């Protein structure tokens, strides 16, 4: 009766099908972006370089002269094979441009959320188990401070301290992990800490609330009535149960960072998705916007899928229901 691998596979399969359906919906919407924008996208893209020949050339190259259904199917077929069109602005394939930015964005998101968890889990658990005491008050006030501080200011503070005063870390820039792991690590710390601290402040409050709720539940009383050590009661009974609702928040925050934290990227000259999207919007580079929206949606879906699988692994009621 235990959660058989088969039940988990069926669960995973269903989630994958759902995700595919949602992704198809996103494709319809992103396709519609270009059709719905006011004015002529080709004309807008050309701007001051406009002349009749350039217009005709770009129109044919982009396929916007073909009938709508044909455009749609070639867009879908292209997207499925990784061809998201050509950026109006730079003339390079959108897929290439997006993939260039992906490692920086993923680094920032993963390291940032990792740091956030490193701070939020112990702080939230510690405060939750000491409700109403001094430790709880300290954590609550600090996290309130973290929630209220704007991220660019947090970034500037960190730069001033670690790169200005102490001179330990570079103030900006990005080196790919594969090229120089040491350089990558030194450069990722400050931007990741900036997004991580803000995320940690929010997460701490959720962890604290979840721990508080679980700590008062009947099964924790049962665990105590068995004479188990406080460590076992906390780790096995309180924390595991408290983490179930926290997983959702972690997933949302991870996806938010991954889809671009524009201000932090600007402050640290970090070549992430956020800046790419910003520049594409400013330049009305529709193919680029379409591609970025699709990628961001896919990342959200992937992260949600991972969160769902984590849920199922942790909670037998989801796995076996």
């Amino acid at each position, binding site marked *: *009766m235990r959660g058989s691998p088969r039940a988990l596979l069926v669960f995973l399969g*269903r989630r994958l099908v759902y995700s595919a359906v949602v992704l198809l919906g996103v494709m319809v919407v992103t396709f519609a972006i270009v059709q719905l924008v006011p004015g002529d996208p080709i004309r807008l893209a050309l701007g001051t370089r406009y002349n009749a020949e350039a217009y005709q050339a770009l129109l044919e190259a982009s396929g916007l002269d073909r009938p709508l259904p044909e455009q749609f199917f070639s867009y879908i077929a292209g997207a499925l094979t990784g061809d998201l069109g050509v950026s109006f602005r730079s003339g390079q394939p959108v897929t290439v441009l997006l993939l260039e930015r992906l490692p920086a964005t993923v680094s920032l998101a993963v390291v940032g959320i990792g740091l956030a968890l490193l701070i939020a889990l112990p702080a939230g658990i510690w405060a939750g188990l000491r409700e109403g005491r001094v430790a709880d008050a300290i954590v609550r006030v600090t996290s309130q401070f973290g929630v209220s501080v704007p991220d660019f200011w947090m970034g500037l503070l960190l730069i001033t301290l670690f790169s200005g005063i102490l001179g330990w870390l570079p103030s900006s820039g990005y080196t790919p992990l594969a090229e120089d792991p040491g350089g990558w690590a030194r450069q990722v710390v400050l931007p990741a800490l900036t997004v991580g601290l803000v995320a940690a402040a929010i997460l701490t409050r959720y962890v604290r609330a979840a721990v508080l709720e679980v700590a008062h539940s009947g*099964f924790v009383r*049962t665990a105590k*009535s068995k*004479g188990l050590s*406080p460590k076992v009661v906390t780790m096995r009974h309180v924390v595991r149960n408290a983490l179930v609702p926290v997983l959702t928040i972690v997933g949302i925050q991870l996806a938010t960072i991954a889809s671009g934290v524009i201000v932090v990227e600007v402050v640290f000259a970090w070549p992430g998705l956020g800046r790419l999207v910003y520049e594409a919007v400013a330049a009305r580079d529709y193919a680029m916007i379409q591609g970025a929206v699709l990628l961001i949606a896919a990342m959200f879906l992937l992260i949600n899928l991972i969160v769902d699988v984590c849920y199922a692994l942790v909670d037998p009621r989801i796995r076996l229901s």
Partner: protein
Amino acid sequence: MSGGWGLDGGAGASAEAQTVFSVQNLHVSIGRSPIVEGVSFSLEREQTLGIVGESGSGKSMTVLAATGLLDAPGARVSGSALVHDDRLGSQQLVGASRRALRRVHGDAIGFVFQDPSTSLNPLLTLERQITESLEAHRGMTRRTARTRALELLSAVGIPDPEMRLDVYPHQLSGGQRQRVMIAIALACDPALLIADEPTTALDVTTQAQIIDLVRDLQAQRGTAVVWISHDLGVIGQVADEVIVLQQGQVVEQRGIVDLVDRPQHPYTRELLAARPKLGGSPPPPVDAAGEVLLDVQDLDVRFAVSTPTGRGHVHAVQQVSFQVRRGTTLGVVGESGSGKSTIANALTGLVPAGGSAVLGGQSLLGRVPRALRRRLAMVFQDPFSSLDPRVRAGDAIGEPLRVHRLHAGRHRERVRELLDLVHLPSAFATRFPHELSGGQRQRVSIARALALEPDLLILDEATASLDASIQAQVLDLLRDLQQELELTYMFIAHDLAIVQQMSHDVLVMQKGRAVEYRPAAELFGAPAEAYTRALMAAIPPDRPRAALEA
């Protein structure tokens, strides 16, 4: 009020009689308010002490404080509580260090709590939850502990224990979960078992099984038991001696038979009188050929359920037919999951249903006009969750008047009349739910339901979460209202005794089917179906077991 034993059952009076648990002059206070004042008792092997009282009387506080498991901020405990275990020796529990308490919790003292659906960890297998204390106290390996867990599961009567070890709590029924709790409590063979309302959340038939189980295990192992209950009927089935607590004070402490036969304190007499029992007075008879108000034919409800491997359905109500005559009460009785509440939900349009249900000539199923909805009103079980905590009682009662535009321009007056109907002072209109007791809240809920001037009032376990004395008062009120206003009730309850007191006709439900549907007098006089007889037999008898066995 010393802790002398009046041995009525004679159990435990063996040569090796020894005190397992001795509590002297126990006081508990929170802040400046005293919660428990001077409780003393002592308990020998294989004996059971019952602690009885209404909610808020300090029953659980007494036992949690005496065993060092009280976890209330600002609570102060004084007095003495000595537990003796053959292996661990004697241990003073009041003022003991956390480490000393951990040594006896789960080892010398086992605990079973009220609600088995919340007292088991949903994320851990049964094996893990049973073996934890064996590993902590006995230093057993996973493998030996698993063997022991297997023995325990079969000892508490779980079928297929081998397979169930790897199961999670949500895969068990309520009764099975409570059996698992008992297995956990008895894992280390404790000298003392604390059972805090262990059967309150269970059906009456399951309750009877759990009582028998604990008694059997107690006899095999010589465990001393402290059994807390608000129900003197249950206490009568398990206890040798009883402590009656009222507002933290011991008002009576004697052998169970003596207590039931010769209650000294008025509060004890009140508790005994308030106990719902079969054979109480039925409601006044009504015209047997009266007008049929509600006619239900072949009511059928299915719930779709989806599982990872496909879709299925639960057949919650299967082709159930009944009628309710105007001015009468139809009692609907059955265990949890029998479909009682689903019938109510189908009639009020909360779940879609097949078949037909006609109220005074109009069909209730499918899309119905709002004016028809008004003719049915419902009172729910839990008066704590069925009133909005931020809405004053008067506004809660007045809301249906506004929604259905009744008594326009004289809402305040009407609210006052309704409060008066349920015997609450009109000043209560400005109170918030947290300023009301459980019984008062349920009166407000009844007034709110009556505001609609409904033809049919559906009472879904409306008195189930009230103390016995409060329940008796609310039932009196309902009977008076029926007489006064010629109301028609559908009275849904799991408790046969109160169904008998309230009903003219009774519908017995089991697993979605109507197993018996007859006039109440006939049904209770000679139940035709085995299931009805089993339900009646499971009600704790009026006389204590000790008296019946003597």
